[in-house]
């Protein structure tokens, strides 16, 4: 079983990429579980025909953990992709990081973490140990950074490299960086910049995904691109990504950049 996690700056397109990746993997014949690890709970929406499924944390809050069953939290979406949303507190109260940990413990107890591949769709950045949970022992072992060529999203990706490097130093940890996905803003020389960034942090660009109107149209239709327009070029990009993720065995410990180096790198591609 492969366990992968997608991390990256908020709004960079992790959920869109995750959902399309899961859909493509499923169509390729794999058993897929996608877990949205964000209180916003919008990770699996396009796989569920626009439906916001009940979250693990909401059910735990309403009934208590002992009254929640796997059937309550695992929903079957497009082409059999199993979908889970961790959920969390209202913004501004409590601890969403602890919510992620609690969710994982419950899913593990249920024996839910099965399949050919688990896709962990994690929120914007690794702000505390709770949000690093998918990277921890036994969970996601392959981390994909989703970034564009914009400096702010490279900052976030670089920060996540720091988290992976730190966690990889633990004796039992199998957490590694598996690649960089360029979810492009269609800036000039963007693919080159992200590929160079990937190389500099001791990884590789695994897929370039251009900005495409089809994504917006599919979302308005509450579908993944794979489902909405399977013949489109964009759908093919996601299928390519799915194939490369399944084949990918290049797992490394990242070498994050200093901020000055990151900025001078970005400057070279302006």
């Amino acid at each position: 079983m492969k366990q992968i996690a997608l991390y990256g700056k908020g709004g960079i397109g992790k959920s869109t990429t995750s959902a399309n990746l899961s859909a493509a993997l499923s169509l390729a014949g794999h058993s897929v579980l996608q877990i949205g690890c964000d209180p916003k709970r919008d990770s699996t929406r396009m796989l569920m025909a626009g439906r916001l499924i009940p979250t693990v944390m909401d059910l735990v809050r309403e009934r208590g953990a002992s009254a929640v069953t796997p059937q309550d939290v695992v929903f079957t979406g497009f082409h059999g992709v199993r979908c889970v949303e961790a959920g969390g507190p209202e913004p501004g109260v409590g601890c969403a990081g602890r919510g992620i940990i609690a969710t994982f413990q419950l899913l593990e107890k249920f024996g839910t973490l099965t399949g050919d591949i688990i896709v962990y769709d994690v929120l914007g950045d690794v702000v505390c140990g709770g949000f690093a949970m998918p990277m921890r022992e036994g969970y996601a072992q392959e981390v994909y950074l989703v970034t564009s060529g914009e400096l702010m999203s490279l900052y976030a990706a670089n920060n996540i490299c720091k988290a992976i490097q730190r966690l990889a130093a633990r004796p039992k940890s199998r957490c590694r960086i598996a690649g960089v996905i360029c979810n492009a803003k269609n800036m000039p020389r963007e693919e080159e910049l992200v590929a160079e960034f990937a190389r500099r942090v001791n990884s590789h660009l695994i897929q370039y995904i251009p900005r495409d109107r089809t994504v917006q149209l599919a979302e308005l239709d509450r579908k993944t691109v794979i489902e909405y327009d399977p013949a489109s070029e964009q759908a093919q990009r996601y299928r390519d990504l799915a194939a490369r993720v399944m084949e990918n065995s290049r797992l490394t410990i990242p070498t994050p950049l200093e901020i000055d180096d990151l900025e001078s790198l970005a400057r070279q591609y302006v």
Partner: protein
Amino acid sequence: MTSNPLPASTCRTAGCTLTGALSVVTQVTDTVTVVHGPGGCTHHNFSLLSATALDNGRPALPPLVSTDLRETDIVFGGEEALDRTLTRVMNGNPGAIFVLSTCIVETIGDDIEKICQAQQGCPVIIVPTAGFLGGSFQAGVNNALIALAAMAESSAPNGRVNLIGEKNLEYEVEENYAEVSRLLSLLGLSVNLRFVRNITTDEIARLGAARLNVLRDPALIPVGEYLNSRFGTPYITGFPIGLSGNSSFLAEVAKTCGINGTDAVTRERAREGELLEKFHDLAGEGVFFSPLPPDPEGRIAARDLARNVGLRFSDQGNPVPVPVIPPVGLAGTERLLHRWRRAIFA
């Protein structure tokens, strides 16, 4: 950060911030304390406080209630649990409710002030006690004393003396109180308020009436300063420690209060001499301290005492105990000398 794990470094008054504050607020007998956090934070303190009360011959269950936070409260915020608990406690019509925060609720950012302000019925007083923010047992004591002092209004001076911050968790708290009361009486002074030991919320009103505050030890200086700024009350920084502590205590109190204490000091010096005479049989015996107390003040007082009774320091001598908290006054010194005598001639 404290990093000395030796048993010699441990005592009842070196727990977490919460324990320090609880050792104060639970002494206000007509109140209830709500500990906002997981049940365990309350449980182990409850055990300690009830065991201490039993040891001191006054068995009593401390009026403690936990908001008993569980994982869901941590994830979604514990404010509802606090609100619910306060409402329940309020139904018992306590004189006041103290709300003590724990490390976890400060981590998740519960708005404790908002919840407490919304409660009607009796004063609800917040005492910050999240130890991970850098607090220690002593910080808990000081925070609790200052929070309680905020309940007092200015009142007409009555010429008496407050005792501030007695160590409610020590075995000898009543004996020490008796010794200090005796010394004050030699100067014609009496105790106005034991702040805080076995009092009610009404009694706190006379906190500002005293002419002098006697702090239990110098760690309470921030409390002394606070009371000085609130009520203009001068303070002295500690109970009498060691052999010559009584006479110097008397001299300091007399000076601060503008009293002629010459006779009292002379008489107390004579008592110091009499005490040494009672233990003249110890002279020449070899001893070493075991364990060595971590508190420098305690070490100095013990060394001075040993020299004054003529004990010799020797690795081959008898191990004699030294309390973590230095003995108070001649009564405490005499207790210690009895222990040493037992250890030497056992």
